[in-house]
């Protein structure tokens, strides 16, 4: 079992003084000044960055949306072209002297629905 003494319940002033002396370090006032300055300055920088970033993030989002819309539109284009092809296939089938293939019949039925 661990032996605690009544002295363990209160700080040891001698040991405390030695530790403070060894760990405080030089120029405590200058250190505090540095920390205060660093905290507020760096925070200002974050504020500036945030203020700067907000409208630009919005602009980037709008630009990305536009690019996405154009991309989707571009992908949809071949389907429209395919539709034109099918329509012209049906016309050519009617005009042709050859009997239509089963695919051409199915395509024209599908198109007429």
């Amino acid at each position, binding site marked *: 079992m661990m032996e605690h003494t009544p002295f363990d319940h209160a700080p040891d002033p001698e040991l*405390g003084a030695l530790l403070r002396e060894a760990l405080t370090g030089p120029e405590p006032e200058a250190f505090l000044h540095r920390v205060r300055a660093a905290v*507020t300055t760096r925070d200002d920088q974050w504020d500036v960055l945030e203020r700067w970033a907000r409208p630009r993030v919005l602009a980037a989002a709008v630009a990305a949306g536009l690019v996405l819309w154009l991309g989707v539109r571009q992908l949809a284009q071949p389907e429209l072209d395919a539709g034109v092809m099918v329509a012209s296939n049906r016309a050519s089938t009617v005009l042709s002297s050859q009997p239509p293939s089963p695919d051409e019949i199915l395509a024209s039925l599908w198109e007429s629905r």
Partner: protein
Amino acid sequence: MEDADLARAAARGDAHAFGRLVDRHGIAARRAARAILRDDDDADDAVQEGMLAAWRAIDRYDPARPFRPWLMRIVVNAALDARRRHQVRRAEPIGETLETGGLGPDRLAEAALLRERIVASLATLPERQRIALVLFDAEGWGHAEIAAALGVPEGTVRSYVFHARRAMRRELASLAEGMR
């Protein structure tokens, strides 16, 4: 003005109020960081990082609870992170940067040796024992406050302080023998 009042003002964006909290707790934070890191510059950087993190998170501080352990927990974590980052780097002793206080060369050398030995003795302790010892004996914190700062039960803090003191007293006694 109480810490909690200053923290409330800081949470509303009052940087001056947070500056006053830095003034109140910065030196204790520096000592705790030095007990963890030993390297002066790393310790000072860790305090700065910790204070900055606390400033950014000040709106998450609950004013119903004590401010000091909340802040110290952030600073201690910053110091532990820094130590992990610099694990491979060998720390230099603190001795050469301490104030001279106008002592003569013999006393100066003796004082420097004592400090060096204290720092070296501290370094032999497990990390949490070291922090608990510094906060209890050097800063006069209560066991409960240290327990809150370290995130451990109060009984564990008592055990840390007990073992750390025993080891330190043994080291200091051998140092005193050597100086006679």
